[in-house]
């Protein structure tokens, strides 16, 4: 008799702890698995070709040993960790990989991966960094290029109905994630920050249909549960660079605070708007992936043709969504965090701080080096911050 598969939050935890298991099972059944770095690769096209998208993560609990030969220690430890895992054959079940120009090191990772890890198929997306009209055209060309490359790899073309269906499936996932985030609005929240990270990481380790099923189970379970997070003094919004491990959120939630909302890329960032189903679906995909994902790697301004600049209005156009999050999720403080050597987040910090100050939201900034051990001194900082916001 087959063992009964766990469901909902328990299943999310299982997948979080052994995330490659499902991908390996499906691969054994003949499905091809395509790894992707960051949230800029167009997953809808991977799904439309009946391939399985599988997000690349690092492992902050695994010391980086092999990647030192390729990347110096002064670059992003998350990306070094990703490469390290590749070199240690932890991604040997991948049939392909899609990288993109998230940042300099992210862009160079594609070449290094080709050179040193040698996953059979690879494609790099030169995602533009501005929202100029010309950049949107360029992004569309990148999307077309990815489509052609994936079709060549899969040995078949993407039909229009298959692509529309995939867009619908991924939009459903985005809607379900938003629904799950709504469960963090009550006080106490019905789902914790730690559980949220587990769920998001789990759905990025499963085919989209299975991820959607998991989300439905989680939502249903959380609504009914009696053992959810307890009420605490502080409700916090978390902004920053990649957090693919629960450790930091665990540390915060071990104190007198609940993380009730986030703006990170293993969080809300990839799910809070939908791909528009345009006449040519590639137009909607290009627009979504260039303009809708609010990662600091993209240069945004109120109006790029504006010759007169107003700093505060510019900040408002870039960050007012954070104020909305804080209001809607009733967060009384903001923790800004960044992994060390993430330049794009680093340059954003002063602007975010100025904006949060202008709307009266208390904030603190934490920098970490993507190791579990480095979180201990941050605990004191968070404690201090919680005392300040009372």
């Amino acid at each position, binding site marked *: 008799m087959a063992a009964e598969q766990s469901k909902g939050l328990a299943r999310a935890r299982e997948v979080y702890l052994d995330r490659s298991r499902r991908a390996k099972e499906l691969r054994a059944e003949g499905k091809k698995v395509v790894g992707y770095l960051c949230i800029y690769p167009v997953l809808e096209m991977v799904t439309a070709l009946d391939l399985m998208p599988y997000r690349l993560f690092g492992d902050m609990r695994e010391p980086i040993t092999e990647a030192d030969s390729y990347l110096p220690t002064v670059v992003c430890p998350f990306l070094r960790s990703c490469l390290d895992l590749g070199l240690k054959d932890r991604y040997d079940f991948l049939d392909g990989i899609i990288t993109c120009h998230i940042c*300099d090191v992210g862009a160079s990772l594609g070449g290094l991966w080709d050179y040193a890890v*040698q996953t059979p198929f690879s494609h790099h997306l030169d995602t533009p960094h501005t929202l*100029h009209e010309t950049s949107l055209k360029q992004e569309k060309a990148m999307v077309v290029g990815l489509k052609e490359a994936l079709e060549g790899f899969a040995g078949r073309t993407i039909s229009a109905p298959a692509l529309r269906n995939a867009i619908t499936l991924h939009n459903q996932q985005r809607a379900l994630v938003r629904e799950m985030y709504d469960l963090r609005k009550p006080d106490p929240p019905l789902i914790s920050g730690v559980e949220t990270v587990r769920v998001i990481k789990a759905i990025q380790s499963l085919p989209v249909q299975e991820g959607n099923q998991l989300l439905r189970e989680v939502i249903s379970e959380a609504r009914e549960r009696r053992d959810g997070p307890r009420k605490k003094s502080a409700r916090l919004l978390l902004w920053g660079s990649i957090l693919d491990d629960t450790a930091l959120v665990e540390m915060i939630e071990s104190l007198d605070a609940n993380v009730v909302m986030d703006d990170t890329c293993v969080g809300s960032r990839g799910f809070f708007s939908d791909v528009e189903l345009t006449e040519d679906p590639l137009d909607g995909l290009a627009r979504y992936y260039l303009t809708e994902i609010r990662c600091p790697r993209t240069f945004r301004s109120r109006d790029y043709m504006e010759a007169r600049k107003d*700093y505060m209005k510019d900040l408002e156009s870039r960050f007012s969504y954070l104020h909305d999050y804080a209001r809607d999720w009733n967060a009384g403080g903001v923790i800004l965090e960044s992994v060390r050597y993430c330049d794009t987040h680093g340059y954003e910090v002063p602007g975010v701080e100025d904006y949060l100050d202008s709307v009266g939201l208390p904030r603190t900034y934490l920098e970490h080096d993507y190791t579990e051990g480095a979180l201990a001194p941050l605990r004191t900082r968070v404690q201090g911050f919680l005392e300040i916001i009372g």
Partner: protein
Amino acid sequence: MTQQTRPRALNRLKSMYALRAEVDKMYEGGGGSEEERKPVAWVMLEGWANPILNAMGIRTVYPENYSSVCAAQGLATPFMERADAEGWPSHLCGYARTCVGYSSRMVELGGEIPPEAPAGGMARPILLVGSGEVCDARFKWFQSLGRFFDAPVWTIESPSPSLRERLQEDAYERNVQFLVDELKAFVAFLEKLMGKKMDWDQLEHTGGGTTEINRLRWEINELRKARPGPMHTRDFWSAMSAALYRGAADPEGITQGHRLMYDEVKERVDRGIAGINRPEKYRLSFEGLPPWHSLGFLEQLADRGWNFVIESAYRPGRPVSIDLSKYDDPMERYVRRRYRSLDESLEEDYGPEEAEIIRKEILRDGTSRRLGLRHIREYQVDGVVLHILLSCRAASSGLNLLQQRMLDTLKVPALVIEGDIIDTSLFNPAEALRKAEAFEETMDHYRQVRKELGMPW
């Protein structure tokens, strides 16, 4: 008895001094009232914006260069500390942190140039022009200066496709069109900002003028292949600012300066004079950006017979003759003059046979072991110094792989030195010198290995 003074180890080129002095002109005219001054834009080094801005009558200054001026004079640290106090993370680019601190100080003084600023200082900008080329810092750094200036920020977007993608048939033409459209949008923005139209004839002058400067820089570098190496990397770095930052503003003057430099280097080659006043024991390449604050370190290495005959950064591209007459659009001419297809570049740089091998390697593996090594082979270097910069991902992230490739392919070893372009606290010259002494044995060993393998040097 008269004591003989031993000459300095570096044998500086006389022609370098005039070119080095050009950089001071960037900062001249910063004083006086705003009405008296030409409008100033702070610009990042990338090659597209400068001729356009100069053609629009906007004076360009380069905070990246200015930060290196501050570092060279030991004056960067207070600005960086100020940036730290303002909340900019301390792992960010040393150029940027210096610029942030400078801007903060300027605001404190009501917009005036800080009296402690070296070389006359940078005048308050009416515009900030960032760049999508080369490094992430350049997307975000100027935007983050919004706390200090209400100057608008324009970020020039430019393509940076993977090598494999650059070999795709339509990629080059698509990227040319992208650049043409992007730069036209920039011009439209400038016209709005300045309230006047672009002078396209002037762009032909400012944009075209740099072509001859580039050709001369290339020819000078070709001369540097001679044994002994006639021009040390320190002279290259001292002179390059003139070409990179002032070439569009004063094409004739900078061209003439490089003609004189070419003549001087040629004369040294003819007479067998080296760029160091010691016997050339080792020929080296400097990979990465230099420690601007500690260039005296190179004097100590030269004293040991280390001649840095070439370097990886700021090298001029091979001059090519392009027929631009078939393009009516002045912006298209401007773009095509500089933006080359990878196919053509490989052919020109490596010759048809090797270019074909490289193409096949790129299409198969995404990269080629041969890339980035040509100067090591052509300048017959015995070793390279890899300068890992603790505040610069762009210049440092590829160096470890380069180290492997050089050793595997050319049997040339690398000395890894950690430091920084600006931050003196991150560089330990005594330790670097100790490592260098030990590295000589490694270079000797691999010289023998190359000999046994029948390699030409």
